């Protein structure tokens, strides 16, 4: 597609979409959102990029092959699940760490659940992009 409006617009939109997807990812633990939705939104940014500037440019902008992103995400999600077992809990039990915890505030919660969600984000992001890029290049 060769439209200058789309190309210029995409430059801003792609970044915004990825940023918004990260927001959705982190917001996901207590409110609607999460890794799956985040991954979908993030991949939309690059799909838009591929539509506007072609898949070759989109792959360049992404730097890493989308398949690798997806598989790395699977690895992160698995490790986050296994992590619980080192503390004697059942697999995939959430492990929590509260940074700067005080009596009335929980501080900054870090959990394996978040890392699992990041894994999901990457799996969705990577697999959607691999499918879309493959389809774009084929047609």
């Amino acid at each position, binding site marked *: 597609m060769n439209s200058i409006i789309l190309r210029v617009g995409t430059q801003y939109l792609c970044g915004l979409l990825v940023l918004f997807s990260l927001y959705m990812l982190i917001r996901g633990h207590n409110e609607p959102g999460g890794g799956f939705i985040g991954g979908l939104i993030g991949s939309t940014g690059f799909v838009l990029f591929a539509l506007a500037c072609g898949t070759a440019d989109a792959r360049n902008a992404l730097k890493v092959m989308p*398949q690798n992103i997806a*598989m790395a995400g699977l690895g992160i999600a698995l490790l986050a699940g296994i992590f619980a077992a080192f503390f004697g809990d*059942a697999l995939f039990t*959430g492990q929590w760490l509260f940074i700067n915890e005080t009596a009335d505030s929980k501080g900054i919660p870090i959990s394996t659940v978040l890392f699992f969600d990041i894994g999901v984000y990457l799996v969705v992001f990577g697999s959607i992009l691999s499918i879309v890029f493959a389809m774009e290049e084929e047609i």
Partner: protein
Amino acid sequence: MTWTLATPLVLPFLTAVLAFLARYGAAGRWFSVAGNAVLLAASILLMVRVLDQGVIAAQMGGWSAPFGITLVADYLSAVMVVITAITALAVSVYALTDIDARKERLGYHALFNILIGGVVGAFLTGDLFNLYVWFEVMLISSFGLLILGGNKDQIDGGIKYVTLNLISTILFLSGIGLLYGMTGTLNMADIARTLDTVENQGLVTVVAMMFMVAFGVKAAVFPLFFWLPAAYHTPAFSVSAVFAGLLTKVGVYALIRMFTLVFDGDVAFTHQILLWVAGLTMVTGVLGAAAQNDMRKILSFHIVSQIGYMIMGLALLTPLAVAGAVFYLVHHIVVKANLFLIAGVAERTAGSTNLDRIGGLYKSAPLLAILFFIPAFSLAGFPPLSGFWAKYVLVAAAIEDQGWIIAAVALLVGLLTIFSMTKIWAEAFWKPHPEGADPALSQLTPQARRHLLIPIAGLAAMTLVIGFSPDPFVTFAKDAAAQLLDPTAYITTVLGGKA
């Protein structure tokens, strides 16, 4: 406890990740071999635990059953996981030579290990929806493996495979929905417990039939098997072997699990249908094989006919018959995967798997001939190979139950199987090569010979071990059958919180 149950499930996925990220070098394929070796060790550990304690269960994420996902292993699950690991290890060694660098770059090893992970997951899960998810994991990776390389016949076979399996998946999903609507739970043990209290037992039977059709497609029973002979002869030999060994057997496992644990209310109706299906599957499969003239196509049709035997054991539902089905499953996976691996070597040396175009393998490659002889005649049920004992137990069970017709069919199909196997023997091994070629194994590099023949020899040795000392295996199968027919221990372990 959690570790023992979860390790065989997690390992293949870790292996897949490593193998995928290293797919451009030689490391990827060795990750696959090493991962599957560890998987075998983990599954043997699981087996030891299960032999010690009967049934073991673990609740994922610490959510107690029936709310969370339960992993559970009884004798049947444990033995299936062990045999999966053995097959996976054998095939991953074989794939060192069989799979070229192009297919490796496309992610063969990752897909293969994800497939193994899906199979193990299906065997270990105690949750119906989770079973669906594992079926999908298996399905997606098997799609990828099937069309990897993109030959015309692969695409053609792939379409038939994909479409029919998708229909089965959707039936399975609808069945899960209806079952959930009736019982309000998805934990299989909990469903088994509450299903008797459902008012509308007629609806239960309807749902049972939906599951029968859904798993029937997966297991390739009559009249739902058409995708199998259309697809199984098209991909790489490693892929065919692991498909032939494991995929349909997951369908059989799911049938056995559901129709002993959950749907045991209307046995007179459902298992009568299963018995008919079993007989017709055996006969059509073996007749289809008789009409074929290609090694892999003959073997594909034989998968169908052999599935009939396992379903027959399930349909008779006596302790001896179910034990026969379990024994048959184990024996069949080893034998069938091995036969496909051997077909691969035959193609590499003699140039084809079409029986008209090859020959002379007995004279020029006697080692391969012996290695073929063992699984082929075990498949046909020659004493004292493993297939003989498997068929013996099943026929004995049929006669004990006065199922004269099914016993006769089983024996007749055994005879026709011998016909097919002797056909391969006579055409590929005995008669001279039509082009006067000398298909000796020495054409292969020593490294290729090691990679191809060691797994074949290993699986053949297993067939011999089962054949010459069947007693421990039959005893084990009887214990497994006793557990299946009296699922109290299964249900209490899953729900009792002995995690």
